[in-house]
């Protein structure tokens, strides 16, 4: 296997190319071979002005997105990075939602302009945050993630309150390549072409970057500038594509991984082959889709379908993927100021107590005024305590995963358990149309535990490599997003049921369920506190940990299982509230709690408080309408986290 072209991947590539050619012919032949018709010739018109420009769009978009993905993975040194990482599509999405609801006149400028402005603003914000720490990959990934989550949540709230007019946004979000003229692909071609050519100037600097920061700057490379330029190009490429056709998320992640798998090693080969593979993938998917679309009565947006095919592909390839370990072990952030822990805990507990009182007793009147009293206690208590328990559990689950994997992007969502639950629910909604509450819970539970079991079984053979588990989760959540996106884009009202569930509402909480959740939180968080020494030692690296006598494999397995159980329980209670699981551990650390035990406790308190506050605000701020707690939590938590990041950047 050393050197030369590897046989199996080459064969796969060959089959891919021939399949693409066959599909293309099937698609083009009818319009091409049909006899000449005088007057209006529908078949030829469609071929010339719809089918062909659409295929061209697929080629260009696939190339540009995959090139952007390869650039980002290279610069951020994170194999999970993709064009969506820096908040580009989330920013565009939010801009479109705002324009549609509040400034429909702006759409007259063209949706692509609005989307481009949104994408640019989001990316600029991420870069501004990154610039404060010399464009360090960690800061960029984290701020991209947070800004993406925040704008995603804000857009979701707007959609939630106005879902009837948002179908066009869903179509955009699912990435439809449909077009009725050559205008769009031609414009895209010259814009992305210029940016792609500019990448040529970065080949050498990017190669040097491979050596590591110190070594590269020793050779005279300006690290910050190189990173900034590469990121700007990647952002530009993906923003142009996204604004033109919508979100096509998965290609940019999978194509560079595939390119590596096929043996592309050096930077120029990697960038070029990623682009070509991406173009081929998107072209094939879209050609297939255009052929198949005739059989379905509804729209099949390419972006969503790509993800539906791409995620299983990623899962299949996972065992062959060689992920450099050091890609995940990054220089840790500068240690935070460590305050007096006892005072810190006292403050957190006091804040939680105040929040609980507010959430339980302070509410709105029908007329709009405020009232303080216990009359609605029986309606509020189940919601408040469900939020509390779920917030604490997800926070601890996220903390376990971040400590286990050493990846800042890890959260319960990334474990795939919540995606499994959502898939289960989607299946239920699809089979039963209007399933009752018990049926919804049953299907979601089935999905969550199926994924959990699959992860545990599949990782028993490999040595439970954390990065594999993360990629499984990412593939699964992409699959879920795509399926829901597909349903939503056709206007299918059932998609709203799933979207609501995904936004994590406490509406369905019952007294018995809330009690059960609180009990589960105590039972499951306790072992996490007891495992504090493992959690302190495992981040020292598997070598050191096992030299000290920790059974690394079984310890990891047990902690993963615990994280899975925590996230599954919370997800079944309130839905997949991924924000809390991601943010609470970061917030706890930024507040100065850095050791496992104190960080666990602080994260649990922070997560609980965040969810209780989110639920209360969601219930009161637009009363009598209600915003799901999961979305409010992201809207509240994200700016808070950015503020803390900023503050630390200055010192």
């Amino acid at each position, binding site marked *: 296997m050393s050197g030369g072209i590897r046989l199996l991947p080459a064969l796969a590539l060959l089959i891919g190319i021939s399949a693409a050619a066959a599909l293309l012919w099937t698609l083009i032949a009818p319009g091409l071979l049909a006899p000449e018709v005088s007057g209006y010739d529908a078949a030829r018109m469609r071929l010339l002005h719809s089918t062909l420009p659409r295929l061209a769009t697929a080629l260009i978009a696939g190339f540009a997105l995959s090139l952007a993905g390869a650039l980002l993975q290279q610069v951020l040194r994170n194999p999970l990075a993709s064009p969506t990482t820096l908040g580009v599509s989330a920013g565009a999405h939010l801009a479109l939602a705002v324009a549609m609801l509040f400034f429909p006149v702006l759409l007259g400028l063209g949706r692509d302009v609005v989307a481009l402005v949104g994408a640019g603003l989001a990316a600029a914000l991420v870069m501004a945050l990154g610039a404060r720490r010399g464009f360090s990959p960690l800061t960029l990934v984290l701020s991209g993630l947070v800004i993406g989550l925040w704008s995603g949540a804000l857009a979701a709230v707007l959609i939630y309150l106005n879902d009837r007019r948002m179908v066009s946004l869903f179509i955009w979000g699912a990435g439809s390549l449909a077009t009725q003229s050559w205008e769009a692909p031609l414009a895209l071609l010259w814009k992305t072409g210029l940016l792609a050519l500019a990448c040529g100037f970065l080949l050498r600097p990017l190669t040097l970057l491979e050596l590591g920061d110190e070594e590269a700057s020793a050779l005279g490379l300006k690290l910050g500038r190189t990173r900034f330029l590469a990121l700007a190009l990647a952002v530009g490429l993906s923003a142009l594509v996204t604004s033109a056709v919508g979100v096509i998320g998965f290609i940019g992640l999978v194509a560079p991984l595939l390119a590596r798998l096929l043996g592309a090693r050096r930077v120029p080969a990697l960038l070029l082959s990623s682009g070509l593979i991406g173009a081929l993938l998107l072209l094939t998917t879209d050609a297939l889709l255009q052929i198949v679309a005739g059989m379905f009565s509804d729209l099949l947006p390419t972006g969503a379908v790509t993800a539906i095919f791409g995620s299983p592909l990623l899962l299949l390839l996972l065992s062959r993927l060689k992920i450099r370990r050091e890609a995940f072990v990054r220089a840790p952030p500068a240690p*935070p100021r460590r305050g007096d822990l006892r005072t810190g805990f006292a403050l957190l507990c006091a804040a939680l107590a105040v929040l609980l009182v507010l959430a339980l007793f302070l509410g709105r009147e029908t007329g709009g005024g405020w009232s303080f009293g216990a009359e609605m206690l029986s309606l509020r208590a189940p919601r408040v305590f469900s939020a509390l328990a779920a917030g604490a559990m997800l926070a601890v689950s996220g903390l376990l995963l971040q400590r286990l994997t050493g990846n800042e992007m890890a959260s319960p969502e990334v474990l795939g358990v919540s995606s499994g639950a959502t898939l289960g629910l989607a299946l239920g909604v699809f089979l039963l149309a209007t399933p009752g509450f018990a049926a919804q819970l049953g299907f979601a539970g089935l999905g969550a535990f199926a994924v959990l079991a699959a992860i545990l079984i599949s990782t028993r053979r490999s040595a439970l490599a954390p990065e594999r588990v993360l990629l499984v989760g990412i593939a699964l959540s992409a699959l879920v997003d795509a399926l829901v996106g597909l349903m939503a884009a056709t206007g299918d009202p059932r998609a709203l049921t799933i979207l609501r569930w995904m936004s994590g509402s406490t509406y369905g909480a019952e007294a018995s369920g809330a009690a059960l959740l609180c009990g589960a939180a105590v039972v499951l968080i306790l072992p996490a506190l007891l495992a504090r020494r493992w959690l*302190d030692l495992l981040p020292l690296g598997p070598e050191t940990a096992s030299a000290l006598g*920790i059974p690394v494999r079984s310890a990891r397995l047990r902690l993963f299982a615990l994280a899975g159980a925590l996230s599954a329980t919370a997800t079944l209670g309130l839905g997949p509230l991924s924000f809390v699981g991601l943010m609470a551990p970061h917030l706890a650390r930024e507040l100065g709690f*850095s050791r496992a035990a104190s960080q666990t406790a602080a994260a649990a308190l922070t997560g609980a408080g965040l969810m209780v506050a989110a639920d209360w605000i969601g219930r009161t701020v637009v009363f009598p309408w209600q915003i799901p707690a999961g979305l409010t939590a992201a809207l509240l938590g994200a700016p808070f986290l950015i503020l803390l990041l900023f503050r630390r950047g200055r010192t």
Partner: protein
Amino acid sequence: MVSEAVSSEAGAFRLEGVGLSVQGREILRGVGLSFPKGRMTALLGHNGSGKSSLLRIMARRAEATRGAVLWDGRAVGAFGERAFARQVAWLPQEMGAAPGMTLRELVACGRYPWHGPLGRFTEEDGRKVAAGIEAVGLGGFEERFVQTLSGGERQRAWIAMMLAQDARCLLLDEPTAALDVAHQVEVLSLLRGLSQEKGLTVVVVMHEVNMAARFCDLIHALKGGEVVASGPAAEIMTPETLRLIYDVEMNVTHPPGREAPIAYVV
């Protein structure tokens, strides 16, 4: 040239016909060596001689494909995870970053084999931690973050953790590689002192033959996965043996007033 077998197996490592092959490539071939209690032994050899692999096998970080590895008269595989860590401490060549940990917290990690995941952190544990920090001369740095320490301080912090582990045997993979001469001397004297005063078995993988001869009781030299020389430092320090180990013409002098001889490249 195999050194005399030490009669007592207590607190000693004994290797019998140890072999290791990885993907058909033989890394180690029939290595038979002893590492007696209370002695400091150097593992010498040039790059790729198999010395690090041998140390990893002794530390149970890798498994020998042939032969037996005995600690205290028992096969190393027979010990439980923590039981082994109480006996044998190991310092890998590259250490984790210890994000967000203070020096004292890092050194306290060394007590894990004793208190385990749930046991109480006792006063005894606290004393061992303080002693470990004191021994490496980092007293007063307890509350500093490990990330903020200099390279030499960090190296000593990890050795302090190893000392706090309170094991009977210390295995170190090139512990002085990142240190300046003064710190090298400091660390090696520390280890030598421990082996003499506390009767610890110390095994150090090293490059530098003069440092080895100056501080170690015994030297085992490997080449191409086989033992080429083994014995008291003084016996190894001959031009013939050194040529055998390093494939370079070397000579040895005995400066007046210095116990250990000095080797130099001709």
